[in-house]
């Protein structure tokens, strides 16, 4: 159900290992590459804004890509104007990104701002592309609690993937060495954020204390020893099983869990 001349661009970034902080391929970006490879095969184009000499980029090449385009800029640069200028003329039908970067600010704003600047629709949490025909794509969106929603969206569009997308394939060493990193010279725009904000090592969040607003000792004792009790629950006793089932059915329907 997929046309074979689909032009897909995946945007990738450099990740950081959650424990050691070592540079690696970013988890969600690798999933975006995986999804792109499944849709477009080796015609997938992968784009990165940053340092072309970074060895961690080769991990993406090891997934079976022959080349990777890099828009050269320093790590303090703003990637947004470069990418939006590039994508305006690239003629892509689908742009895939991860949900948020693993280094730097990681606000997850990039796909939203790109969609706003390009005037394209944006799909969040893409899990699967079902079919593409007549300039429309039918996709599955991942929702929390393992649910899925079917959406129909006009091409071209931007989609970001999260951990519900198919897991990325392993990166192989040989292809990673053989792949080409194509650097493009672009004008660099500085990011204004770092002028006023500063990074610090993440502090563990303070654990929320259970505050008991009791005035007397007896009330405090009661609060400390109380069992979990709803108290206000409705109890149906001596009713027929049909009436009981009806009450349960009504509650389930009010909560909207019956599909």
């Amino acid at each position, binding site marked *: 159900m997929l046309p074979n001349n689909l032009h897909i661009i995946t945007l990738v970034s450099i990740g950081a290992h959650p424990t050691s902080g070592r540079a690696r391929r970013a988890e969600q970006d690798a999933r975006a590459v995986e999804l792109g490879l499944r849709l477009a095969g080796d015609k997938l184009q992968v784009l990165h804004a940053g340092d072309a000499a970074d060895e961690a980029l080769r991990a993406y090449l090891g997934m079976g890509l022959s080349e990777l385009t890099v828009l050269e800029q320093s790590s303090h640069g703003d990637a947004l104007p470069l990418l939006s200028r590039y994508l305006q003329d690239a003629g892509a039908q689908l742009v895939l990104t991860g949900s948020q970067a693993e280094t730097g600010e990681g606000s997850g704003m990039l796909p939203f701002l790109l969609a706003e600047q390009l005037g394209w629709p944006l799909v969040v949490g893409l899990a699967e592309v079902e079919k593409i025909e007549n300039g429309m794509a039918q996709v599955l969106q991942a929702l*929390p609690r393992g649910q899925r929603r079917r959406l129909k969206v006009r091409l071209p569009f931007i989609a970001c993937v999260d951990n519900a997308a198919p897991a990325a394939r392993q990166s192989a060493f040989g292809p990673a060495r053989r792949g080409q990193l194509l650097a493009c010279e672009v004008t660099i725009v500085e990011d204004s954020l770092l002028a006023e904000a500063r*990074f610090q090592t*993440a502090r563990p969040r303070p654990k929320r204390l259970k505050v008991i*607003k009791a005035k007397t000792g007896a009330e405090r004792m009661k609060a400390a020893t109380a069992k979990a009790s709803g108290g206000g629950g409705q109890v149906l006793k001596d009713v027929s099983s049909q009436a009981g089932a009806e009450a349960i059915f009504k509650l389930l329907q009010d909560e909207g869990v019956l599909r």
Partner: protein
Amino acid sequence: MSDIIRRDPRAEWIARNRLHPLHAAMQKAETRWMGPNGIVRKNPHAVGFIGPNGLKRIDRSGAQQGGSSKRTTASAVVQLPLQVIEQPAFYIAVVPDMIGGRLSSHDKDLLGLANKLAGSDGAVVAVVFGEHKESAFDSAGVDRLLHIEGELYAGYAPEQRVLALSALESQLAPRHWLLPDSRTGGGELGRRLAAKLGERPATRVWQVAEGQCIGRAGAGREDLVRRAPRLILAAVECAEPVSDTRHEVRPLELLDQIARNLPRIEDLGAVAVDPALIPMAEAEFILSGGNGVKDWTQFHQAAAALGATEGASRVAVDDGFMSRDRQVGASGIWVTARVYMAVGISGAIQHLQGIGACDKVVAINLDPSCDMIKRADLSVIGDSAAILAALIERISTHRQGGARDAA
């Protein structure tokens, strides 16, 4: 409860009438009095009261229970002080997630943060889309409520919602926009709004104090400290929820018509997902069976009919009716379902711990005095097999009715 001391003429009359059968019982037992020589005398036998087991109890907390003394009414619910903001100097706009039509704990934390930012002269505006079932907006800290309804906002319509929010932006120009940075919609809506308004948001914020905010950056190894921007996407437990004031939930109207856009994303509805494949810890609807379930084939049928993920208590797992990875409770999985249906589970404390995060609990049990009934929001006392059979029947008629409507 009123503290006014009132006369009780009947009690006085009984006290005068020594032949009245209640005279002895209602006679006020004096425990200390001034003797004729100015010395305080005490009667130690009159202290205390006879408890339910026939033993004499002495309560020194001041709340004397055994009759006599002052008559007390049942303690009424304490009415929190109402905070009215007639002419707000500025507004703080909050867009809660409203999962299942109610304020989640994340939403309440966010409203707490909004009240902190609003102080005493700002007003907190909550924007709610579509139907809701929440009745406690006042104690959650909502000063103004903007309720936006309509077919356009039903289902998945983030672009239309952003248009509605930007209409509010042009009407009130709130000092801050606060949205929950959650996967259930707030994170997405907030980022879309930020892109639309051209504001650079602070994301995953977990502390806002003195004009500075701290949020997680990158993959969570670093924090980003910056001046609090206008748009804040806050993480869970970003502030304490409002607990000691009540707020007037004054309805707010949008003055202008909201612009309509041609939806570029069309919602084709939810897709049926095999409930058995959803991890138990994040399943939305769980049907759980315990010792009281005798017919396990019927239990599986019921789960299939309801579209629920299956769970089990420890006994059912130990007896081999369910696999170990389906066990709910302290030594199994701690579930977070919105609706948890317990069939034939009496509710050991270990099991109740495991379902602590569940929203609504439905119990089907033979024993009306078990702990699960005390926890449950709806309990049906009766034979589980008969009730499950009736429930399967009810749902199949509902499904067939729906199919007929569609055809």
